[in-house]
């Protein structure tokens, strides 16, 4: 039994022993700190991180404080989803089972500059947040293109780099994007589509596609790979060419929605065995079974800088029970990249032009 009132006798350590023991402590601490630095990527400057992904968007588009780093120009929409019940046997998600689920959405221009003219790109996007009665949410970001240009986040990053301004000229290398596509044959379906695509005059006439694949999971635990699309219902045919001016999309939407609710049909496209589930650059062959899961009804708009959609991160992996992400590597990268963009812009809310104006009113 040690007598605690007086410390046990400890012969002093020799200088060599003391040095060795202190070195031992330093080695243990350094090993743990080094493992941490390895995990957070300090030793791997080549690793693609969420930060790099968003930095390249800022390099290409400039920094617009408070705005999304991509799809920066848009407008909020409010409405609801009416389930048809047709997807009920494929998914336990409440959104497919309840009659009505409230929705906050956002139409946008897939560009990183909030002041870009609406004709800058021939693509439009629609993001939606469904809030189920049980509190779970389904968030989805869809685009009017049928396939994504590339299959991996690394290739997406390289495509952005190819569009970065060169330090010498302040302009992108005109040969860089063609060289990128020459080295990426997987972009062929996208390039074939974009050749015929024209900037639409309206958000309302477009069909919006999930592009990435997901799984529906039913009560028995059976998983069915799907992609989805929102197809306009009884709206005039697409094809109208974009009018003059740079801000026609929001005006058009506000006018149309003032005349009455706008509707889209949610189509769930069921994959056949063997269809590529992890590659958003590849279309699925036509003739796949399609479920009409219900109708999206949009009833009003709000400006994006004061509307409900402003503070929503449309992370495609915020999913309710009954819908799961696939192993498409773009999904995880979108989730990670959006989180980084979201932190940057939520840190800058006070710098938003409309926030300043409204604070004064």
């Amino acid at each position, binding site marked *: *039994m*040690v007598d*605690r*009132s*007086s*410390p046990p006798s*400890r012969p002093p*350590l020799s200088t060599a022993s*003391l040095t060795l*023991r*202190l070195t*031992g*402590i330093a080695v*243990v*601490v350094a090993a*743990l*700190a080094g*493992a*941490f630095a390895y*995990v*957070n*990527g300090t030793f791997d400057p080549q*690793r*693609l*991180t*969420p*930060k790099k*992904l968003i930095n390249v968007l800022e390099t290409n588009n400039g920094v617009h404080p408070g705005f999304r780093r991509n799809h920066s120009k848009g407008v909020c929409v409010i409405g609801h989803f009416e389930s048809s019940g047709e997807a009920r046997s494929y998914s336990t998600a409440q959104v497919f089972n309840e009659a009505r689920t409230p929705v906050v959405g956002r139409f946008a221009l897939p560009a990183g500059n909030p002041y870009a003219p609406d004709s800058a790109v021939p693509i439009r996007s629609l993001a939606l947040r469904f809030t189920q009665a*049980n*509190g*779970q*949410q389904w968030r989805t970001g869809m685009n009017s293109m049928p396939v994504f240009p590339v299959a991996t*986040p690394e290739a997406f990053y390289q495509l952005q780099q190819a569009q970065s301004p060169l330090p010498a000229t302040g302009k992108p290398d005109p040969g860089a994007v063609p060289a990128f596509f020459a080295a990426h044959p997987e972009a062929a379906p996208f390039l074939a589509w974009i050749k015929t695509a024209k900037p639409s005059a309206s958000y309302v006439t477009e069909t919006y596609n999930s592009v990435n694949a997901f799984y529906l999971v039913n009560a028995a635990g059976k998983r069915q790979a799907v992609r989805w699309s929102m197809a306009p219902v009884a709206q005039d045919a697409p094809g109208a060419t974009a009018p003059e001016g740079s801000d026609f999309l929001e005006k058009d939407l506000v006018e149309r929605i003032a005349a009455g609710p706008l509707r889209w049909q949610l189509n769930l496209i069921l994959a056949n065995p063997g269809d590529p589930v992890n590659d958003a650059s590849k279309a699925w062959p036509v003739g796949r079974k399609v479920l009409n899961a219900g109708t999206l009804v949009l009833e009003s708009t709000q400006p994006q800088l004061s509307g409900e959609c*402003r*503070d*929503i*991160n449309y*992370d495609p*992996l*915020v*999913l309710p*029970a009954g819908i*799961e*992400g696939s*192993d498409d*590597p773009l*999904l*995880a*990268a979108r*989730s*990670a*990249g959006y989180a980084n963009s*979201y*932190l940057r812009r*939520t*840190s800058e*809310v*006070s710098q938003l032009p409309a926030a300043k104006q409204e604070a004064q009113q």
Partner: protein
Amino acid sequence: MSTQPNHFAPLARLLHWLMALMIIAMLFIGAGMVASVSERHEWLINLHKPLGVAILLLVIVRLVVRFSTTQPSLPADLPGWQVLAAKASHALLYVLMLVLPLLGWAMISASGEPVMLSSSLQLPSIVSANAQLFAFLRKAHGYLAYLLFLTVLLHLAAALFHGWVRRDEVLDSMLRGKDHP
């Protein structure tokens, strides 16, 4: 025979080593997930949330155990500044163990996302959705996690210093349950 035990209570030792593993795992999971765009990002986030709540529950149990058991005293010959450092770093460890999971929970709440621990297990939001509050909480969560990692390193270095250099009973009091000659 003194009333002061030589060792930490068995439950205190179990909680210490269990939480040591969980917290180090948690710090590595956090560092890895924010630096990754691969499927690992999603996989790690899905671990991070339930593990964080488990740590929150355990630290509450641990605080109860801490205040209801007697701790071995520090060696009588320990220099005053080391006594102060020991007490301050332990207080900081407890505060960070408690605050970090709460910050994580609050920041998800402030983002307006449902706080999901699995595909269907949902916790209530503890603050209402607010973008600026989210940004503040998210940054605090990150910076304080780095502070926790540094404090854990200091704690580890100090424990080894007691065991290998001072050769007193401090490291032993957390390693062993039985007195030994």
